[in-house]
């Protein structure tokens, strides 16, 4: 029988299942599976439906949007090396419970987070203010099965093209690549940073990929693993979450300014770490997002904040065991303020931690609100929740869970990835349901996030009835 995960061997510096939550093993096995044997006889993955979607991104303005979704082939029902799929979907054109697929590209299984590097002037699509100096917009996604990063050219018609430098193999001991973010600042050297959920030497490792040349720089930042990355374009700095078996919750940052451009090694850039476990005991950091650059009502710049999803574990038990227990005890959204302070280096202030339940996953910041702090979305996979947090009032504004009548999960089973589309006075979220294999759009009024609602459409079977909009057919 083919194994989905490696058993613990003396070669491993970390326990392979230390991030597996009691009630989320299926999802988080994505983050653990590796080195499965290639199955030459396995069928090819379908290109007409999602299959355990994880990463998601949206680009373009309302009505012209292009939705990118990574199918992970989590159960290896299809070929390991080509069982994953990156989809390009037109959400507006998609029928209820169906997909208007504009492009699809097979890739390695166990795809992770998805990031898009927008070229300066992509035809037919809005440009990002932090556009990349690239000839064409690209999507980046890593496959943990093949240890590769796919840099996929995005056509204006939704086509997806894996060019000559795609996929790109990551270093040999860079196992389980997962998180990816793009760093383009004022068209300076466009880069992507990729995290590794596992390495041979159990170190917190990042790979920087120069998106123009394909050149890689790798750096280790102490013991542990890396999870998700957030990029601060204003300071040319990346923040990334990491964790370690014995329970530290390391939030690290690296100033990736021109000062540390090649030929310096990435590890020679200015970097430091803070143990978030000192603020929230037993925190295991996951998704991370950075607040929008903003000014308050008096025109004074607001300090930037970091929003981090963290699973909680029994820190006392971890101390006894010597590593993180394999089950969670809860989950929180942690809010930290980044103060540059007198020394010109970040000082982290703990603002608060809001319980969200078991299995916090991805965190996204919604578009900027003039004079107000941000609205933040976080998926909680184990409990099937999507929380909307209003940082301006320091409280949760809305939570989506189960249907009150049927108890059915409103966002599908195991909601995970979130993509955010700026619609002016509101934001549209696209939430992937990992276990249900569909995507749900959610509208969030930015001035009143408590009124956030799942987008509804007339039920095709009964037009008098409104039902949640669903992109993709539910996997039974």
């Amino acid at each position, binding site marked *: 029988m083919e194994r989905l995960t490696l058993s613990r061997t003396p070669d491993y510096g970390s326990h392979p299942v230390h991030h597996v939550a009691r009630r989320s093993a299926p999802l988080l096995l994505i983050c653990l599976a590796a080195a499965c044997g290639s199955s030459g006889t396995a069928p090819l993955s379908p290109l007409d439906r999602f299959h355990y979607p994880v990463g998601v991104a949206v680009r373009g303005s309302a009505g012209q949007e292009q939705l990118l979704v990574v199918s992970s082939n989590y159960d290896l029902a299809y070929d390991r090396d080509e069982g994953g799929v990156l989809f390009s979907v037109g959400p507006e054109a998609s029928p209820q419970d169906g997909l208007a697929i504009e492009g699809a590209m097979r890739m390695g299984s166990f795809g992770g987070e998805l990031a898009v590097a927008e070229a300066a002037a992509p035809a037919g699509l809005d440009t990002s203010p932090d556009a990349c100096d690239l000839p064409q917009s690209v999507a980046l996604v890593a496959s943990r099965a093949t240890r590769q990063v796919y840099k996929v050219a995005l056509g204006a018609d939704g086509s997806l093209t894996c060019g000559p430098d795609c996929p790109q193999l990551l270093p040999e001991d860079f196992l389980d690549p997962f998180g990816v973010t793009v760093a383009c*600042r*004022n*068209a300076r050297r466009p880069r992507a940073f990729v995290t590794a959920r596992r390495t041979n030497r159990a170190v917190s490792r990042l790979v920087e990929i120069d998106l123009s040349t394909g050149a890689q720089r790798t750096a280790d930042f102490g013991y542990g693993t890396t999870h998700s990355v957030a990029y601060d374009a*204003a*300071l*040319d*700095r990346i923040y990334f979450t990491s964790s370690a078996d014995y329970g530290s919750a390391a939030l690290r940052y690296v*100033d990736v*300014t*021109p*000062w540390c451009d090649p030929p310096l090694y990435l590890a020679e850039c*200015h970097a430091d770490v803070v143990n978030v476990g*000192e*603020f*929230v*005991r*037993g925190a295991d950091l996951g998704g991370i997002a950075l607040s929008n650059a903003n000014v308050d009502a008096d025109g*004074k*710049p607001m300090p930037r904040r970091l929003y981090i999803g963290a699973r*909680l*574990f*029994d*820190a*006392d*038990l971890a101390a006894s065991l010597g590593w993180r227990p394999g089950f969670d*005890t*809860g*989950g*929180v959204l942690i809010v930290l*303020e980044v103060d*540059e302070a*007198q*020394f*010109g*280096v970040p000082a982290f*202030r*703990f*603002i*608060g*931690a809001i*319980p969200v*339940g*078991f299995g916090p996953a991805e965190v996204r910041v919604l578009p900027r609100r003039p004079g107000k702090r941000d609205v933040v979305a976080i998926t909680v996979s184990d*409990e099937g929740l999507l929380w909307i947090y*209003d940082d*301006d*009032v*320091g*409280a*949760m*504004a*809305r*939570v989506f*869970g189960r249907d*009150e009548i049927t108890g059915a999960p409103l966002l599908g089973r195991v909601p995970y990835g979130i993509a955010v589309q700026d619609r002016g006075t509101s934001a549209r979220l696209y939430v992937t349901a990992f276990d249900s294999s569909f995507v749900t759009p959610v509208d969030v009024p930015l*001035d*009143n*996030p*408590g*009124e956030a609602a799942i987008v509804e459409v007339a039920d095709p079977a009964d037009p008098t009835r409104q039902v949640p909009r669903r992109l993709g057919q539910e996997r039974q």
Partner: protein
Amino acid sequence: MTARNALLLLALAASAGCGSSAAKPDLGLVSPGGVAVFRGLTTKNALDPAHPYVAVANSGRDEIIFIDTLDDEPVLAPVVVRPLAAPTLPGEPHPTMLASVGLHDGQNADGTGLPDLLVVVSPGSSRLQLVATWDLATHVVQPPEPDPLDLGALAPGAQVLAVIAVPVLEPGATAGTWQVARGKARVVASLAGGRLAVVDFARQADGSIAPSAVPVLQDLGFEALSLAESPDHDRLYAATVEEVIPGSGVYGVGELDTTGAVGAWTLRALDARVGTTLVAAAKVTERFVGVQDGDTFCVRQPGEPFCKAPNEDLRVYAFLDPAACGRSARMPCGLAVIDPAGGGLLADPTGEMPYLPPMAVPSIPVAIAIAGPTALPPTNEPSDAQLSVAGGYMLLAPGSGQVKTTGVAVLASGDGRVYMVDLARWHIPLNASILRTSTRASVTGGTVFSPSLVVPDPENPGQYLVKPSRLRLGLWDLVQWPKVTRPTAALASNATNMPSTVRITPGYTATDTWTVMYQGPLPGLSARAGQTGATADGRLWLAVQTPLPRSDGSTQLVDVARLFDPSLAVHVGDIAQLAPASTVTACLTTDPDTEGLSTTSYETRITAILPPSAAYPGGAVALDEAQLIDLRNPVASERLPATPECIAALKQVAPAGNMLVTLRAAGLVAGGASMGYVGRPQLEADPTAAEPFALTYSALAPPPLGEDGISCPILPWPAEAYGPNAPAAFTACVDEACRSGCERLVLARKARRLYYLSDRCLDTVDGPKATATKGCWVDWAAIADALPDASGPIVSFHLGCAQTQVDGKGDPIIDPRTKTVVEDVCTAELERDMSLTFITQSGITYAYRGPTSGSNAAASFPVAAAPFDRSPYPGKQADGYRFFVTYSENFLIDLSPGTAYSTSKVIR
């Protein structure tokens, strides 16, 4: 009892009669949120309409569950699968807030006897959900349409941020007095948008509770994050991180006089110096400061047990905004004590500081709850005629020993612990003595370091030798000083003899590693990216900053160190080292080995501190370019000056970061690994003739004004707000008088008290003082008589240096009698990076409560807390006061700070 209730009761009795089971369902808690104690009617105590229960917002299951406060058993449902759960209303998932209050219309003397008001709120919602505490079938009341408790109708778009339930006051028998109205209660909800919504409820004829008036809005002008009421119910307190009254400049707590008409409550700002996030209020009697007979609450007069009656001082306790407070900020972090009568922070009873320093809390609390003295004393109460529970006192049982106090708070905190606060003593009690045994505040070790020297090799010109240093730093031991024949024998330099030479003060000294270094790098200013350029008058400036090029060709500066900020302690005369990048070709030098060009480091002195400008928004230092020397040669006397071409190149502002920078002190510099810069000690040749180096609040900031008497136009740093238009006083603060004043303020803030002791040396514990040879009397000899209120230095010491005598060959001279090297007091200049290090421990081990180790419950994240006095209930007198604390890990704890940790009970 209604007919419906009777039927339910019968059904319950019938079902019970069909059989019983020893097994009971667990609570089924999923991400529990708020908790509240209320009195009401349930099937568990169907004959008691006002039995006390704990309501828990079972957030993950969209319901409320109920637990009997007397036996910690859940109220069971008619089915045995789960306990009774009251689902929240449709569209109101994940309840997190609960509030309850009695209507004071019961038959008991305290007004109890009938069911209380209980409401629940879901996050992001504007609706109050009323719980039918009067109905045997406990449930959330289905409101009519439109929902009169939907505050969104009153304040569209508002969400409830905090909620509290309070009694309603009505005029008393005499003018100006107030009394609690019978049969009425009120819910006050803080709404987003800086408003309060007030909803009045009243007991109905059938025993139910219902809204008695439409909700009314009360404008606040700030976002209230937490609410509390005064024990007399006539004031409401609101925590906020915003200015309490816009334009007033006052941050702290808003106080509302609730005796007036709702909507016209008057607001007063209580100054806590920074914003607040949590608030609670209580009446306590605080311990008396200055009394000499140990830990007591007042000076006892003949015939008078107490100097004043228990629990007569109104206090407001507010947790300070962690984003605004701090060691170097205007206010340290922690739980502030506010005296409403004074309109702000309670005065420091010792008179040292201009305010009572807040109680330091080792984590960030997410909830606060307060309990007062119990109705009945515990059955095992220690005898103390003066401080009896019956007299208004209560027990508190930290690990350091049981004490009596007049008010106890608990802080459910992010580190998984529930800290207990002794409100009468302004501190979290300790689990071990801060004055005695190995746990006490102390200096635990020390070491010195002298770098080896590089000198020219006389036998091989052009080559160099490495020789050990002849110098060592040390701390003068004033006890040994008069006993030794050679002064340097009293110079302590190792872990054995250094601890006794450092004076510390319990309650002031934190756990830290302290270093004194000669020409050491200034804290935070080592190996930083920097930039140079030329001032308008042609001087060479240096700033610690990184330029980022913009696409429009301009440059943005990041990682800016505020060299102008006195917190960084840069002085004129200090040393600047810079290592230009290889792109600054004019500063490259020829490597003698490879004969190729290579980068090198340069060094010079700082001639001025420059205020911020567009080129250097954090300020800069002007450098003495005439003394700029190339550091390539290891022998200082052989170093060459920088070339004019190099200096000219440095004056051209490079578009990219072009160098690494380290700023070093001109002489000795002292700092703590956590504390940072603390000053610049001087060497003492004769310690009896000089004042020690000390970091002492009262010396830096003399009373009565303390730190508030020091003016510094730079603090708080206004650069972000003012930019190039900074006030003239800010930019003018370049002279010695202004900068030294600012540094004094910075150091005074670091020297603030961090803990109020309540312990002192006692003959009964430590033996007679007169004959003591060790222990408390000896360890704290300098301050023993002033304890527990003694103030003193964070650290204090006499610094010295010894220099080894050498013979004509340069070898050390050995004393033939003692076989040790012969030393004199230093006359030679100290060597760079010579250092001395010692370690202090604070002796502070805060007492807390949490799940017991045998409960197999993880103490990760407590969420909410509610107090309850169990003592008046039959058979429960010994239990005393309790707190019910919910944990997000799907359980709650019934704990009491008045009993041992092991008595905490996990309920799930």
